[in-house]
């Protein structure tokens, strides 16, 4: 590989306000090197590298993925306001670099489980944008046939989409344990927020996973607010990467997709090589409220949100990196924008038009094929509906 490099810009390395990383070098091979913010380490002697490289193909792919998630969420928000989506709906806008960066470092046999802010993850783990939006509108093409809704989305190796704050984390340890038991060298990423970080069960499984050397990557996506309470008002220790105590931890700039990818690579290497669990804190930000019923402006200022959008936005940052380093042209970026918009628009159209599942499915998939539950009572006065199983579970 041609490794002759030269500096193309002389930006201040520490000026991370405008773009979260600074271009330092460029390879002729179209691999470009960037400097990330420093990682903070807990119980680790060495951490991930801060000078990271990315090639054109990957960079454009991350850009496309992040933009798709942003647009998917914009469509979700709009359809929610139109009452096409009912119930709960938690948007990921602002946090895209976390999911996209992590996914980029995972291998096909690694597993992921997260909480209810799961639309983007589901798409990244292999579900189409249309199947995510259809799930949100409760229609038959949804990933869970419209039965789960916004919080319960699934895909291969993606165990959901869980509605209870913090409850998915112990499951992640169980899933990671299974990989170890089967000897696959797979790891499980168990995600939670800064609010859930105070749930007792998370400390239970920090202990269990360390005790048993379970290959799990705990990821605290710290977007600054647990619902409407800022991190410092809810947590005695807001250094979330240290809260596993005996579990090594890394603070990561969660607004920089390349920093996330680099940290995740490091964590995968750690967990998959028998060193047990590791904890990543992704410092990130959510632009929307906690859910659609939270305007998100009563506990923080509009200026604060605006400032993050202008100075630290993960998508804008990557775009600037791509353009200033010459990896792609403005026209190429524009083309991606158009394609993503088209895909999301088509998916939105589909989500609006698809039929919902029939009322019979109310009683489907409560149990596995079951002689004891042929009829489910009390669904219609004086009538019983048959219990059925719809398809075959992926995990069995």
């Amino acid at each position, binding site marked *: 590989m041609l490794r002759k490099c030269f500096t193309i810009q002389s930006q201040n390395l520490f000026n991370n306000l405008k773009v979260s990383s600074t271009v330092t070098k460029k390879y002729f091979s179209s691999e470009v090197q960037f400097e990330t913010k420093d990682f903070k380490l807990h119980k680790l002697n060495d951490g991930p590298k801060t000078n990271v490289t990315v090639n054109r193909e990957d960079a454009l792919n991350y850009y496309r993925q992040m933009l798709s998630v942003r647009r998917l969420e914009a469509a979700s928000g709009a359809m929610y306001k139109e009452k096409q989506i009912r119930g709960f709906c938690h948007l990921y806008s602002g946090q895209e670099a976390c999911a996209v960066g992590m996914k980029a470092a995972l291998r096909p046999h690694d597993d992921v*489980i997260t909480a209810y802010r799961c639309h983007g993850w589901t798409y990244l783990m292999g579900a189409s944008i249309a199947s995510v939006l259809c799930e949100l509108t409760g229609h038959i093409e*949804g*990933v*869970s*046939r*419209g*039965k*789960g809704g916004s919080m*319960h989305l*699934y895909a291969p190796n993606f*165990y*959901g*989409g*869980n*509605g*209870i704050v913090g*409850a*998915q*984390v*112990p*499951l*992640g*340890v*169980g*899933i*990671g*344990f*299974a*990989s170890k*038991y089967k000897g696959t060298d797979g790891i*499980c990423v168990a995600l939670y927020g800064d609010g859930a970080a105070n749930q*007792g*069960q998370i400390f*239970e*499984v920090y*202990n*269990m996973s360390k*005790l*048993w050397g379970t290959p799990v990557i705990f990821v605290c996506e710290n977007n600054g607010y647990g619902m409407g309470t800022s991190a410092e008002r809810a947590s005695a220790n807001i250094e979330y990467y240290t809260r596993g105590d005996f579990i090594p931890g890394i603070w990561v700039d969660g607004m920089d997709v390349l920093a996330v990818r680099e940290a995740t690579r490091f964590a995968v290497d750690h967990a998959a090589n028998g060193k047990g669990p590791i904890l990543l804190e992704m410092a990130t930000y959510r632009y929307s409220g906690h859910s659609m019923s939270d305007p998100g402006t009563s506990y923080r200022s509009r200026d604060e949100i605006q400032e993050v959008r202008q100075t630290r936005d993960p998508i804008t940052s990557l775009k600037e990196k791509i353009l200033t380093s010459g990896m792609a042209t403005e026209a190429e970026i524009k083309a991606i924008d158009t394609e993503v918009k088209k895909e999301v628009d088509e998916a939105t159209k589909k989500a609006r038009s698809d039929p919902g599942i029939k009322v019979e499915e109310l009683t*489907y*998939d*409560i*149990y*596995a*094929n*079951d*002689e*004891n*539950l042929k009829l*489910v009572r009390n669904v219609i006065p004086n009538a019983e509906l048959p219990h059925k*199983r*719809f*398809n*075959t*579970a*992926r*995990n*069995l």
Partner: protein
Amino acid sequence: MIGTLSKFKSALRPIGHVNKILARNVSHFTYQPDEKSPNVDGERTKMNMFTAINNAMDIALATDDSTLLFGEDVAFGGVFRCSLNLKDKYGADRVFNTPLCEQGIAGFAIGVAATGAKAIAEIQFADYIFPAFDQIVNEAAKYRYRSGNMFDCGSLTIRAPFGAVGHGALYHSQSPEAYFAHTPGLKVIVPRGPIKAKGLLLAAINDKNPCIILEPKTLYRSAVEEVPVASYECELGKADVLMNGNDVTLIGWGTQVHVLREVAERAKNELKVKCELIDLVSILPWDRETVCNSVKKTGRVIIAHEAPLTNGFGAELAASIQEDCFLHLEAPIARVCGWDTPFPHVFEPFYLPDRLRCFEAIKKIVKY
């Protein structure tokens, strides 16, 4: 005060029933081995209930190498000895101790089961299951439904010793079956002795739904039967008719079955009343057909359980029975249950739906 009394128990003159219930070490039931055995060929051997459970888990671990068994003190055999020697036999990576963290245990077990492996999680006492309630009710029970059957944790089995033991008090004697019976997606099972325990546990482990098996802890040692050595399963969701009769239907589960059996014998001898005794076995789903067929025949039904009266599973049975058998009923459906108090320490003998209270209920229902 009771403590002082029992200290001088030997000095007390017998004063009938009162003295009996003060004698705290006297069991409130007499165990009767199962006459109704499964049709399993081959060798049988004498086992108490914890050995039968041990035997079932032994088979489960031997037949499927994805089977894991874990819980507090499980590697050492468990506080009730159910997992004795299994760690030595199958290794510490398959049979292991967990820290004291029920929510973590349940969540971890659901995760293991979600990958398709068979997870047998022991909650040391059913009274300790409540930190895991969220995981069981919100995660385990709904996994299949909310994913449109893309994922589930059907290979999860949770075992928990439950029920009165004579001196367990508030946090070692409760019967939480009704809480879980309120949750579609779960199966809840209670064995009455070693043969059922082995067959039901194996059925639960192999069942494709998350199952909770509540083991009456007072039967672990006191219940002894000739148990088939081979593997067999008892059908889930099926009640057992243990005695036939035309006058009164008695419904119970777990230890209470043995109380009711004794009461039924006494009613036959003293009142010439023939009771039909049903062990419900499975709380969720429950065998409505067997129960209602019996009530249609007898017209009188008594339900007895150790859990408190209000919203105990007896309430669900009573509501369903009156729905199906209203014109057959000769008397109001009776419930003999624990009182609506926390499970009391000093008053445990008063609290239980014992043979005297059940016998009174029979007298009353036949005179109605």
